[in-house]
């Protein structure tokens, strides 16, 4: 017997499940389909959450080592890798279980299985046990997310050659780990393995790690990682990856020529691509662009008027919090509200140590748009809080529109940048002006003061930075 539902959401990640929940709260009859036992998606099962759990572990190890310089010496920590993995899994289970409970509470019909669109109003679900069921819907939200991009010729087996999922499984700690790709996933996982004892090498084709990130931030992180990692190979290509008896032999090429090295494991992290195939989009009027993203409008509506798309499958930036916001918007649109996705900015955070976070326009983006800007940079060496943490490797950088004093962009590097950025997001969304920030009292001693003082620098009167240019 076919199920009839007002709304079906395909994919229960950080976009899909908030969409389903919001729609249910708005009184719609909702079916949520995902191949996992509970809602959560890559974010909760194999992404944001488990990686942050492991990065927390890495931080404890790093802090205990750092304590030496402050007069506290611990013995070298013993790592029980099984327990670490177990703890990480507990975190995942707790969160996904919680999401499953919330789905039940809201009477969302959760189906564990695989959904494929037959046409613009019908879907076939293949459940875990192989049984099939047809589902007729009024509206559909596609929230199928993304998956790691593969490099031709490098076969991920998640034994010796890993992708992010395999790396998070934490089967063992390799003596030597090669991370292919200097993006945020590679650097975060590299940091975890480095803290747990691996000698980590990062290889990147471009001339810097995090090639799309403001160099003012990436260079501070680069400096720190050079000390922790075995090496960071820039402008270097991977020519060949060969399975050997003991490990993986990798051949590189850079300006100096070819060279090779043997590693115990290799992590491939060269980006992610949208899951827009194998879900029957060809049976609908949904349009997919050349990069595989589903084309959507401001209300996240596809070319097929009752089908919507959100999250990674619907375009950059592929970030969980963007998907969640879109999920809520799309649910309200489907419930008949006249709303649209109208966020001024989607913040981005890289959870390395130091963390990097930014929102709004970067200096370069603002220049590319021919906006007359004024940039202020507050170095954390001038922050009392940063000094008490013995972490002055930070920077707060603000981009203002000169004429209106409006804040256009906020960027931070330093421990806790991921938490600090939210104030920047609020400022950018509110179209705050430099004086709105500089006149708001920030608690002392905190790292948030750097935000206030960077705004004071717009007027050339920061307390802890001596004016250099402003008359």
């Amino acid at each position: 017997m076919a199920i009839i539902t007002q709304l079906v959401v395909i994919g229960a990640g950080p976009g899909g499940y908030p969409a389903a929940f919001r729609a249910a709260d708005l009184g719609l009859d909702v079916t949520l389909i995902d191949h996992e036992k509970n809602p959560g998606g890559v974010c909760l099962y194999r992404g944001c959450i488990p990686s942050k759990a492991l990065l927390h572990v890495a931080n404890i190890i790093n802090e205990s080592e750092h304590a030496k310089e402050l007069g506290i010496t611990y013995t070298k920590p013993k790592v029980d890798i099984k327990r670490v993995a177990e703890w990480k899994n507990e975190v995942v289970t707790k969160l996904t279980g919680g999401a499953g409970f919330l789905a039940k509470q809201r009477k969302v019909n959760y189906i564990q299985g695989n959904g494929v669109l037959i046409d613009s109003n019908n879907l076939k679900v293949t459940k875990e046990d192989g049984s099939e069921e047809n589902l007729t819907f009024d509206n559909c939200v596609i929230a199928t997310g993304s998956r790691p991009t593969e490099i031709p010729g490098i076969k991920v087996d998640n034994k010796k050659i890993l992708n992010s999922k395999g790396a998070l499984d934490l089967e063992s700690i390799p003596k030597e780990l090669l991370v292919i790709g200097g993006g945020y996933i590679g650097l975060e996982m590299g940091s975890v393995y480095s803290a747990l004892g691996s000698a980590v090498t990062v290889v990147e084709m471009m001339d810097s790690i995090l090639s799309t990130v403001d160099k003012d931030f990436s260079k501070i992180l680069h400096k720190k990682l050079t000390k922790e990692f075995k090496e960071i190979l820039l402008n270097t290509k991977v020519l060949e990856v060969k399975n050997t008896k003991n490990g993986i032999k990798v051949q590189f090429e850079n300006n100096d020529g070819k060279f090779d090295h043997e590693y115990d494991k290799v992590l491939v992290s060269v980006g992610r691509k949208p899951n827009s195939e194998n879900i029957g989009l060809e049976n609908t009027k949904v349009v997919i662009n050349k990069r595989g993203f589903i084309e959507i409008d401001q209300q996240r509506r596809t070319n097929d008027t009752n089908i919507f798309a959100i999250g990674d499958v619907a375009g950059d930036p592929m970030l969980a919090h963007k998907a969640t916001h879109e999920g809520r918007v799309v649910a309200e649109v489907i419930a008949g509200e006249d709303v649209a996705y109208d966020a001024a900015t989607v913040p981005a955070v890289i959870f390395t140590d130091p963390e990097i976070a930014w929102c709004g326009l970067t200096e370069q983006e603002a220049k590319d748009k021919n906006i007359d800007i004024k940039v202020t940079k507050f170095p954390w060496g001038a922050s009392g809080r940063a000094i008490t943490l013995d972490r002055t490797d930070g920077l707060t950088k603000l981009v203002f529109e000169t004429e209106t004093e409006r804040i256009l962009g906020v960027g931070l590097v330093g421990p806790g940048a991921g938490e600090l950025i939210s104030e920047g997001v609020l400022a950018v969304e509110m179209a705050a002006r430099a004086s709105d920030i500089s006149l708001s009292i920030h608690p002392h001693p905190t790292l948030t003061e750097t935000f206030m003082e960077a705004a004071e620098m717009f007027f050339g009167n920061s307390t802890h930075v001596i004016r250099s240019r402003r008359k």
Partner: protein
Amino acid sequence: MSDITLPELGEGIDEATIINIFVSPGDKIKKEQSVIEIETDKAALELPSPVDGMISEMLVSNGDVIKIGDLIAKVEEGGSTTKEKPAPKEKKKERPKIEEIAEEVVEEKDEESVKVDEHKEEEILQKEMSGRDDKTEPDNVVSIVKDENKVSAPASPSTRKLARELGIDINSIPGTDPGGRISSEDVINYAKNLIANLETTADTHRGTYQPNIPALPDFSKWGEIEKIKMGTVRRLTAENLTMAWTIPHVTNHDRADITELDQLRKMNKQKAKDAGGNLTITPILIKIVSSALKVFPEFNASIDMESNEIIYKKFVNIGFAVDTERGLYVPNIQNADKKNIIDIAVELSDISERTRNKKITPDELKGSTFTVSNLGGIGGTYFSPIIYYPDVAILGVSKSSFEPVYIDGKFEPRLMMPLSLSYDHRIIDGAAAARFLTWLVKALEEPFQILFEGK
């Protein structure tokens, strides 16, 4: 060498969209010959060449929006130099422009999508063809093409949401907070002004005035439909009439015996023809109405509800409806009270002709104080004309016909003309309207009355 530039087009108009180009480089051109057709917010018109000569360069393309004083073409004066026929007009000339725009769009988007680019190009093509720039489409019509090169308006998320709910493009709202930041108050004030003062906001935000009209159903459910974009004139007519409809209208009807007047008209027809005019009943009506307006000044007024004032106009400009293929135009005869009927007839013919040929200037379409709408040439008895805002009255004329009229104990065939006077009941009372209409009827029946009682 002489330049053709975009001349002053009238008060409040600083740009125009090119919708047609009639000449190409190498073409010989006579003074007053149309060079291009342009469209402004108020009207479409053709731009004549100021000199005789030969077009040496065209600097604009279809769809361009040009400003007053912008160079349109260069003309080599004289024109006696008969050069060989220029190469046939290449259609391609206009194409690169479209492609350029489309390319820009692609670059801005940075992720390419074949289908969407086509969509965009189609949109641009449509704009080029219709010569219109639909910047002002309402915000809730979401375009599948994202404008990623735009910094969002300086307003908080809740303010942006408010604007969206009110159906207002936040980018069109001027912010009054320091630094031009837009507050919720700005949005509300903007919305209030939009409703209160459509006349002034029509330019920046046309088409959004729709007081609680529910959305249309999907007609295609019941059969085949065709959608055609409204032209500028039609759209403006719709907007102006919707606005005018908010005036409390009353219509009074009466009939005038024009048997004698019509004979008089026929007798003078040739005179008017010699002068270059066509003596229909309309110029006579315009003359008589002009005279009546002097006697009844409240019919030649406007109401200002903002300041609670009645504005009496000491001049008489009589508007009249001209039916063109682009829609209805209402030009006017200025100072009709100071002109004789033959003058009015000549001017009427000239203005009607120029309106149909798109040669009328926007200024000639403004400033009417009263309107005469004559449907007599087509037919019908009585109709309720809608006041041409900001006038306060309009006279509708239907087809005259012979009717038996009881005179001195017997029925006589008399030529009777149906008249319908709609008026703004806020300023004109029913009795005043009846007196006005009676005066008109009497003046039509006994034109001498004007000499006795007219001013």
